[in-house]
C-alpha cells in the first residue's frame, strides 16, 4: 500500500467527534450544499482491479497493438531507431555515442519516468530528458514537443521497456510532486466542473457517448491513437481531456503536466509498459 495519504475533500466525515467542531460542520454544510447528492466516491482503484486501456478495447484494436507488423506505432519506433544513432549538434554526438545499444541501456528507463532531476529540483518527463541530452550533451537545438522526431525517439526508448512494470520513484523528493499531480487529478475544473477522478476513479465501469471511460492508466505512451491517425504523447492526451472538460489546457511542457504525468505513472505502478500502444 502507498505511504502517501489520500487527501479527499468534500465527502469524508471526520470519525473523531472531538474534532467535529462547529467550524468544520459549517464548512461541510456549505460544501455539501454545492454538491449534487452523490454516494461516497469509489476512490483509488485497488491494485487487483487495475486495468489497462487495452482491456477496454475491441479485439481488432488489440490485435493491431499486439502484432508489430500491423502496429502503426512501430513506424515511429523504426524512425526513432534511426535517429538514435544519427549524430547531431556541435558535439557531433548521437544518442548511441554515450548510451550505446538502446536495447540494454534504455531497458526500463521509460518505466521510471517522469523522474526527479537533481539540478532542476523537479521531476522531468522522458521528452524533457531527451531535450536535456540534446542541449547539454549533443549541443543541439531542442526538439519541438509533439514533433515527429521527438515522438519517434520517445517511442523507440519507450519500446525498450515494453512488458516491464512501471516503477516511478516515490521517495521524499518526488512525493510532493506526486501529491501536486494528485491534486490536479482530483480537482474539479473547467466549465463542466469535472475532475479526472470523477471519470477515471469513480466511473470507469461506465461509458461516455458509447465509448468505455477506462481507468486512465498511462501505460503505453507515446501511443498511436486511431482518432489522431498518428502517435501522440501523454501531454497531448491530457490536453485532449482538459479541452473535453472545457478547462484551459496548460502550455505544453508545463510543470503541471509533468506532475500529472508523474501521478498517473505512480497510480499505474506495477502495470506493464505497452509502448507503442494503440488506442481507438
Amino acid at each position: 500500500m502507498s505511504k502517501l495519504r489520500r487527501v479527499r475533500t468534500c465527502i469524508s466525515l471526520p470519525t473523531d467527534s472531538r474534532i467535529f467542531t462547529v467550524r468544520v460542520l459549517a464548512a461541510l454544510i456549505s460544501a455539501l450544499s454545492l454538491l449534487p447528492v452523490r454516494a461516497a466516491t469509489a476512490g483509488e482503484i485497488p491494485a487487483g482491479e487495475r486495468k489497462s486501456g487495452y482491456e477496454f478495447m475491441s479485439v481488432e484494436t488489440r490485435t493491431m497493438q499486439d502484432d508489430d507488423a500491423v502496429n502503426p506505432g512501430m513506424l515511429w519506433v523504426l524512425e526513432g531507431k534511426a535517429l538514435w544513432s544519427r549524430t547531431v549538434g556541435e558535439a557531433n554526438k548521437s544518442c548511441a555515442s554515450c548510451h550505446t545499444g538502446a536495447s540494454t541501456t534504455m531497458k526500463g528507463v521509460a518505466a521510471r519516468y517522469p523522474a526527479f532531476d537533481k539540478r532542476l529540483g523537479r521531476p522531468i518527463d522522458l521528452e524533457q530528458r531527451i531535450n536535456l541530452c540534446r542541449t547539454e550533451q549533443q549541443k543541439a537545438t531542442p526538439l519541438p514537443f509533439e514533433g515527429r522526431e521527438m515522438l519517434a525517439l520517445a517511442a523507440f526508448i519507450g519500446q525498450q521497456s515494453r512488458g516491464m512494470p512501471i516503477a516511478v520513484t516515490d521517495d521524499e523528493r518526488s512525493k510532493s510532486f506526486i501529491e501536486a499531480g494528485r491534486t490536479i487529478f482530483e480537482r474539479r475544473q473547467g466549465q463542466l466542473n469535472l475532475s479526472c477522478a470523477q471519470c477515471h476513479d469513480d466511473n470507469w465501469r461506465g461509458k461516455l457517448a458509447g465509448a468505455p471511460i477506462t481507468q486512465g492508466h498511462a501505460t503505453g505512451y507515446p501511443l498511436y491513437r486511431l482518432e489522431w491517425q498518428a502517435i501522440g504523447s501523454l501531454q497531448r492526451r491530457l490536453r485532449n481531456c482538459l479541452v473535453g472538460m472545457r478547462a484551459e489546457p496548460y502550455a505544453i511542457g508545463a510543470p503541471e503536466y509533468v506532475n500529472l504525468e508523474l501521478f498517473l505513472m505512480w497510480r499505474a505502478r506495477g502495470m506493464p509498459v505497452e509502448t507503442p500502444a494503440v488506442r481507438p
Partner: protein
Amino acid sequence: MPRTLINVPARAKRGEVIEIKTLISHDMETGFRADNAGKTVPRDIISLFVASYNGVEIFRAELHPAIAANPFLSFTTVATESGRIDFTWTGDNGFAANETAQITVE
C-alpha cells in the same frame, strides 16, 4: 523518407497460401480539410500500391482520399518459387517508395 513495415514469411512450402502484410507511413491528406487559416489543404495521398512476385504482378490496390493515414494493406498469395517480392507505393507530389522481401520456397 517514408518508413515501411513489411511482413513476408521467410520460408514457405510450395503451394502454401501465405499472408503478406504491409504498412507505410503517410499522412494521406484528403484534400477536403481546411487549415487554421481556412485554406484547403491540398490533397496528398498514396494512390497506387503494387506488389510483384519475381516480376509478376500479384496484387494491386488503388487508394482514394477516404483511406486513413499510414495505410496498412494485407493480402494473400500462393508460394510458387523462391525469389523476391517487390512492393511499390506511388502517389501525389511524386511520392514513390519501394521495398523488397525475400522468400524461400521448399
